[in-house]
């Protein structure tokens, strides 16, 4: 940098070619640059393709494999846990269904029992009702018979008091029967 610009040309640069003054267009250096470019590029290409890139690639690939493996393992575990959850839910549903069935059965049984008991009770009550009705009918019958007797006695007594003479039994009976018929 310290050297003055126009005396920089080394002994190898012919003065004629240096006249351009602009290094990128100085064709004198082209051959050297091309040769070294070829050497450097080929060297780098070989180093990259044979050594560095497979190396980096294998590191990345190993990691990817590991990740894929881990993901697959996680998937398997998830499947297992899903299966466990499904089994648990199935057991729960079964238990619930079972409980439901037992409850239904019990209820039905109790309902049936209650029904039977109710029917028996009803029958018994019906019998009792019939008996009572019979008793009532008998009693009524008896009462009616008694009414006739009382009526006859009363009629005889009334007639006797009114006319001073007891009427005949046949006439009283006929009159009462006649009155009761109305």
């Amino acid at each position: 940098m310290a050297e003055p610009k126009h005396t920089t040309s080394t002994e190898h640069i012919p003065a004629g070619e240096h006249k351009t003054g602009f290094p990128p267009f100085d064709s004198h250096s082209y051959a050297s640059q091309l040769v070294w470019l070829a050497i450097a590029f080929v060297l780098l290409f070989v180093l990259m393709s044979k050594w560095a890139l497979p190396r980096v690639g294998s590191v990345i690939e190993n990691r990817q494999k590991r990740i894929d493996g881990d993901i697959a393992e996680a998937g398997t575990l998830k499947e297992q846990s899903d299966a466990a959850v499904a089994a648990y839910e199935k057991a729960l549903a079964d238990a619930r269904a079972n409980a439901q069935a037992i409850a239904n059965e019990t209820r039905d049984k109790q309902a049936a029992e209650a029904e039977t008991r109710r029917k028996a009770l009803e029958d018994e009550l019906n019998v009792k009702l019939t008996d009572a009705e019979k008793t009532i009918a008998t009693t009524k019958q008896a009462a009616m018979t008694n009414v006739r007797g009382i009526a006859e006695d009363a009629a005889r007594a009334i007639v006797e008091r009114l006319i001073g003479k007891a009427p005949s039994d046949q006439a009283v009976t006929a009159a009462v029967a006649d009155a009761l018929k109305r």
Partner: protein
Amino acid sequence: MAADPIHQFRIVEFFPVAHIGNTEIAFTNSALFMLTAVVIITAFLIIGTAKKSLVPSRLQSAAELSYEFVATTVRSTAGSEGMKFFPFVFTLFMFVLTLNFIGLVPYTFTVTSHIIVTAALAIMVFLTVLLYGLYRHGFHFFNLFVPKGVPIAILPLIVFIEVLSFVSRPISHSVRLFANMLAGHITLQVFAGFIILMGSAMGAIGWIGGILPFGMIVILMALETLVAFLQAYVFAILTCIYLNDAIHPGH
């Protein structure tokens, strides 16, 4: 001016190596930095993966990142068949990237600021595409120049344009990288020159005023870092796109 903006691009011959005919092959600063790049890239990847750990260290992370970055680029641009060119594209990308970054360090030399280097790389890509395309598809490779569904009347014109764009690819491919690196470094040098100029012309006030171009250099340096990466990436992705043409010549 104390700092000539072109000075930094000068090829310095250290010692001659061989003679081919009348042409002398010398070991130059350019060669030195090319080999430095080779060493840096190789060391970066090999030391980075020294432990081959499952949970990567920072350096290993960076090494893997560079690998996967280029692999993704190749796969998304040239398809999975393009992966056979992965080492080639990776070498190209890392080589250009490292040379660009080395060039950002003061007092170094930017190999990629020389058109002969970028042109050689671009022509190498061009020939790879051409030869692989012909090897893989034979004469059908030239279907690349005949888009489907074009009326016969304008077909000659289209074919002419397609061939022209194909042939001009190495030019744009190489000039883009070369010009970007050249322009960026000249700009940096010019602004640096302003500091010296102001300092020597105006004394103490000039040195204070020099803060302005210095701030400019800081900003430009960030920009140039981006450009250094971006141009390497553009170079690599264009290579992928061209290779894709060789692998799948049908439009």
